């Protein structure tokens, strides 16, 4: 294994996710980091390095966000890196933390993710318009929802999927989030509620979409030697994968995320996983939109292309199903402070594998879990596999 060291997660922290929090980004970073350190029984002085993930600076209007947030993330006078790969940031941040420790350079790394979207007003949506190509796309009046609508429609067309097949994901995830103490949008809703909600950009309707949010999340990573000293219950990072496709997003068939498959194959190879649906006990694929959960299940090779809606209808992806998907409630239910939302998924796998997820705990004895995030212009995938 190229002399790589095994890396353990030994603590996790999370703030409330809300449309608008009073705390600043620095304060949210601090609260999440402190909680993760307390959970690990460690102090900031035990952390040899810090990695922070946060998504577009445009939300904050502070264009040196990594530096701006550093103190809250515990990076004061430490080796520090800010990483940013769009919506994929939340799962990429612990991957960057992983290589800090796996390389042998550090025995510990504090991994922090923060997003405060509410600073951009009247709606953070407007900050997203600056992700598009300034010459060919922005003059058309691009809206972020368009790219999802175009991708969702193509996916539906290719496999003959109906809106109600997709709406079940929103119903499940918002329902799961009722058991999450940090959740912004936990709710008991029906397929009809989704189908009757406001049409934003057909086929995307209001209840197909996750909210904008403020929030923070953190993890404590340590080397195998340190883990054995401080805990009987480490969770290991056994798979890491990431991949990007071209920014020319209209030059590929959007029905399938090849770059997610590429990232998943990299992580599975490292983890020695040959048959993902059999060997993975639960997964938290990225679900900023309900169809995205299905799209990503397929890209992660958890089922065949076009088969994810069927598994969802059969209840396979419920918490008590054979392959629980987004038991946390996901972005649709817990909320979507972008980088923090991705890291929330890794926190959930960590708590599920340790049997600490309380009302959300999936039955059985889960040993292997996966989290995935997605981002940029239908372009980026990041995948982490955890084991205990």
């Amino acid at each position, binding site marked *: 294994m190229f002399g790589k060291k095994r890396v353990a997660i030994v603590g*996790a922290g*999370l*703030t*409330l996710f*809300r*449309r*608008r*929090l*009073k*705390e600043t980004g620095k304060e*949210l970073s601090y*609260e999440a980091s402190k*909680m993760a350190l307390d*959970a690990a029984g460690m102090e900031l002085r035990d952390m040899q390095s810090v990695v922070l993930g946060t998504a577009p600076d445009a939300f904050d*209007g502070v264009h040196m966000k990594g530096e701006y947030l550093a103190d809250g993330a515990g990076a004061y006078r430490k080796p520090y890196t800010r990483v940013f790969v769009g919506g994929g940031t939340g799962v990429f941040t612990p991957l960057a933390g992983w290589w800090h420790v796996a390389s042998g350079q550090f025995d510990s790394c504090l991994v922090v993710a923060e997003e405060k979207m*509410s600073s951009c007003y*009247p*709606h953070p*949506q*407007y900050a997203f*318009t600056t992700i598009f190509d*300034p*010459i*060919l*796309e922005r*003059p*058309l*009046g*691009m*809206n972020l*929802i*368009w790219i999802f*609508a*175009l*991708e969702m*429609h*193509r996916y539906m*067309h290719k496999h003959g999927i109906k809106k109600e097949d997709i709406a079940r994901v929103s119903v499940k995830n918002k329902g799961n989030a009722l058991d*999450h*103490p*940090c959740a912004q949008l936990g709710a008991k809703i029906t397929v009809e509620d989704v189908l009757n909600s406001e*049409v*934003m*950009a*057909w*086929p*995307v309707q209001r209840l197909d979409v996750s909210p904008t949010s*403020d929030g923070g999340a953190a993890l404590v990573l340590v080397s195998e030697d340190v883990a054995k000293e401080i805990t009987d219950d480490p969770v290991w990072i056994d798979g890491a994968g990431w991949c990007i496709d*071209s920014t*020319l997003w*209209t*030059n*590929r*068939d*959007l029905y399938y995320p090849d770059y997610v498959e590429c990232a998943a194959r990299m992580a599975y190879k490292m983890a020695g996983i040959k048959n993902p649906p059999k060997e993975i006990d639960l997964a938290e694929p990225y679900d900023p939109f309900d169809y995205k959960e299905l799209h990503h299940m397929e890209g992660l090779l958890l089922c065949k292309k076009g088969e994810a809606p069927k598994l969802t209808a059969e209840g396979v992806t419920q918490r008590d199903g054979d392959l629980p998907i987004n038991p946390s409630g996901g972005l649709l239910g817990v909320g979507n402070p972008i980088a923090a939302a991705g890291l929330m998924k890794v*926190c959930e796998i960590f*708590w599920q594998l*340790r049997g600490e*997820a*309380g009302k959300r705990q999936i039955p059985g004895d889960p040993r292997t879990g996966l989290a995935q995030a997605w981002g940029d212009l239908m372009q980026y995938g990041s995948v982490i596999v955890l084991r205990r």
Partner: protein
Amino acid sequence: MSEKIKDYRGEALKSADFKEGRVPTEKCRPKAKFAWSAGIAIGRFLEELKKGKIIASTCSKCGRIMVPPRIYCENCFKPTDGWKYVKDTGTINTYSVSYLAADASRLKEPILVAIIDLDGASKNMGLIHKLGEVDKDEIKFGMKVKAVWKPKEERVGAITDIKYFKPIKEATP
């Protein structure tokens, strides 16, 4: 959240608290403006749009005819080595009926938006643009469409020199 953790942090604010100044805030509108060079490949593309033509660049190694054009093939990582006009007709790859403007405000009349695979370009070489002269309920996947250009004197060398794409009526035999 772990069941071991009882106190989770965060103080939610209502929009009204914020808007009506019940909590301290500071506001600012940055005055930065931007002007982009269209570059070598897209610069040529825009000049051709002004003439009412759509141009692709080609790679002799992988054989692709690429729209939008580029000066390097990202696949072969070598310079593209040709230019080729493609047609201003194509096929709807996917589409949406949008009631959202760029700032997320709501529209009464929807914007019809599509990815159009252009005739004469390689597979999946789509361009995003608007649709017009069609009812939202008549749009279909695989529908043949043709560019509707602005009058010559109004074209400035911009993607909006094409007003929109409209369905090609079935030719009567």
